[in-house]
């Protein structure tokens, strides 16, 4: 029974931490002379208050989940990918190009190709830092930060010039956007809301990534390299190859997220000159979602929904009680800090269990005798 309670507590930990962060936020709201209860009611209502708002939450959660899946792979391979923003952009560019170029093809074909192109574009943009790390010892934090900036400028260049909407090319203001995708090329909507097929795709992929990581040799090797590169090398695993693969796959999922944003939500690419204008910072927030989900693909699903809800709800809070957008950013920061800090309690209990041996103790050994390890590195 106690076990059950503790398990429940573990599962609720991120939620409790979020509530604690909101409590700190409440103090700030009081300073701004806003009634915190009213504000948070607006937040909840905005995220879950109606069928439509819940759909919006899921729309927001979709790219978060996709990026998070990639992060699960790369972080487990002990490569830190903070290039999700750039990878999303490049994936979206390739996918958009497909849809704008082959206008005669049937919709299902184009959508399939476009999503593949997004996957591929992201893979390239993630694979480059991967290769640089594996073969040139260029740190991936550095290269992914730089690659983000490069992708933004690439997008600006293409959307101002070669890929600009022909109707914008003629007028003086020249809004940097591509033409709109044909209706036939748009991802199907699931309800009379903005919720689209992409959400389902993401969930299916979450299961696939789970299988990849724990049921295939490739996944096993990525994790083995992540846990102990030296031991892996002695065991005959070609470490550089798996470093590249981890970043490549990670980028691919982000790229897919970008493609899905275009085909499911915006139906075109638009730039305001920054990365987040297109990605909505999903490339960063996806990292947070993955960690909320303890780097587990399936856990990342509820984690993405929770984080998506927070983002959607916070925006609605801005509208309903007119708090400055800056406060929303502060709240997001607080939530991240609190959730990531709260992890310690879960880990402590886990360790205690291992030590006391109350339960069937260590996680089931993998095929090849290397422990899967829990959640974090």
């Amino acid at each position: 029974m106690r076990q059950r309670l503790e398990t429940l507590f573990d599962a609720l930990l991120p939620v409790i931490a979020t509530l604690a962060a909101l409590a700190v936020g409440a103090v700030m709201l009081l300073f701004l002379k806003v009634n915190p209860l009213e504000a948070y009611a607006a937040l909840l209502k905005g995220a879950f208050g109606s069928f439509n708002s819940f759909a919006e939450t899921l729309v927001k959660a979709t790219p978060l989940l996709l990026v998070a899946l990639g992060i699960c792979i790369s972080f487990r391979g002990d490569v830190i990918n903070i290039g999700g923003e750039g990878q999303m952009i490049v994936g979206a560019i390739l996918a958009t190009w497909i849809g704008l170029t082959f206008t005669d093809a049937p919709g299902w074909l184009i959508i399939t190709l476009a999503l593949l192109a997004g996957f591929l574009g992201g893979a390239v943009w993630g694979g480059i830092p991967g290769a640089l790390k594996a073969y040139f010892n260029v740190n991936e934090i550095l290269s992914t930060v730089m690659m983000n900036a490069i992708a933004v400028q690439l997008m600006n260049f293409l959307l101002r010039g070669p890929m600009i909407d022909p109707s914008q090319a003629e007028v003086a203001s020249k809004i940097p956007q591509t033409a709109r995708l044909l209706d036939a090329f748009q991802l199907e909507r699931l309800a009379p809301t903005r919720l689209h097929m992409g959400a389902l795709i993401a969930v299916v992929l979450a299961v696939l990534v789970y299988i990849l990581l724990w049921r295939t040799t490739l996944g096993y090797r990525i994790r083995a390299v992540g846990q102990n590169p030296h031991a892996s090398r002695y065991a005959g695993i070609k470490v550089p190859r798996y470093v590249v693969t981890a970043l490549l796959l990670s980028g691919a999922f982000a790229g897919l997220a970008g493609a899905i944003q275009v085909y499911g939500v915006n139906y075109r690419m638009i730039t305001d000159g920054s990365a987040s204008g297109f990605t909505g910072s999903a490339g960063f927030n996806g990292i947070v979602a993955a960690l909320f989900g303890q780097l587990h693909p399936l856990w990342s699903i509820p984690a993405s929904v929770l984080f998506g809800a927070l983002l959607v709800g916070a925006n609605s809070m801005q509208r309903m009680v007119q708090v400055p957008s800056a406060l929303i950013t502060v709240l997001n920061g607080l939530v991240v800090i609190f959730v990531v800090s709260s992890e310690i309690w879960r880990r402590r209990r886990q360790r205690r269990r291992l030590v006391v041996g109350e339960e069937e103790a260590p996680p089931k050994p993998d095929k090849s005798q290397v422990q899967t390890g829990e959640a974090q590195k």
Partner: protein
Amino acid sequence: MKKISLFVTFILALALALSACGAPAEPAVEEPAATEAPAEATEAAATEAAPAEPFRVAVVMPSTINDLAFGQSMYDALVRVQEEMGGPDAFEFVYSESMFVVDDAAAAIRDYATQDFDLIIAHGSQYGSSLQEIAPDFPDTSFAWGTTVDTFGLPNVFAYEAASHEGGYVNGVIAASLSKSNVIGVVGPIETGDAKLYVDGFKAGVTATNPDITVNVNYIGSFSDVALASEAATTHIAAGADVLTGSAQMVTGAIGKADEAGVLWLGTQSSQASLAPSIVVATQVFHWEVVLMEIIALVNEGTLGGQSFEINLENGGEVIEFNDGYALPDEVKTLAETTVQGIIDGSVTFTLP
């Protein structure tokens, strides 16, 4: 096994949170009644409107209301409209700022549309695509989109834009008349939209006044990188520029450098004289209220859209505001004023690239 049960618990927890606020989702879990109360509180707050049925406007903008540029130009205009119409009892407005994520802006626009606003303003050219999709779902609500001329042929969308090139041209004329080194520098964000329009007009104005002047243009690739904007200004000054101009919110960095070096500055969008009173010569200030008043009048008559508007020098939507702190030679001021007149009466014409 344990992991799966953990997972299920988490899902249940989410469902709980969901049903707690009355969503028509899974009925499964028990509902703690307490959470119901705050939701009602907001509704109560939302309905406490002024008795005299004010005209209600919601605006969504990509930057902040105090950016001293595009966002502020709209905010200031709304404040002026409010004054003109007789205060909050007659005119109410709410805003969502920093909506640079198009997707978030779309959600905001849709959300405002479900509430009873008389007019919803999408103050960013990047919002067009979203508006095109949302507006048909709310045929009884009026929308306005700027800056553009495109109403998508929708009966409930107004379009508005700024003829920034006109003020840009006048600023160019002033700059050319004041430059002694015959080099002028421009700091821009990215090469599109309102910024490009302004810069192109500015260049045309300079060339028309003095074809020997070189106009160096620097687009720094960002709307927020103040440090790079400041270095761009330094670069211009090192390259010999003695008059600078620029567009968008990060130019504050450039104005600072101009001030330090005693180089003149011409502004656009919102008045920037307060930043460097001794070197800001003039600013093209946007007065969106000119367009807003027209749109409001139309909405009150029952016309919800289908027309496009422009603020320009002629209708007073663009005003060249001279800074009193800077002693502009009379002949230059006269030249600027005649140029403004010329653009208005059509005797000054120019083409954009």
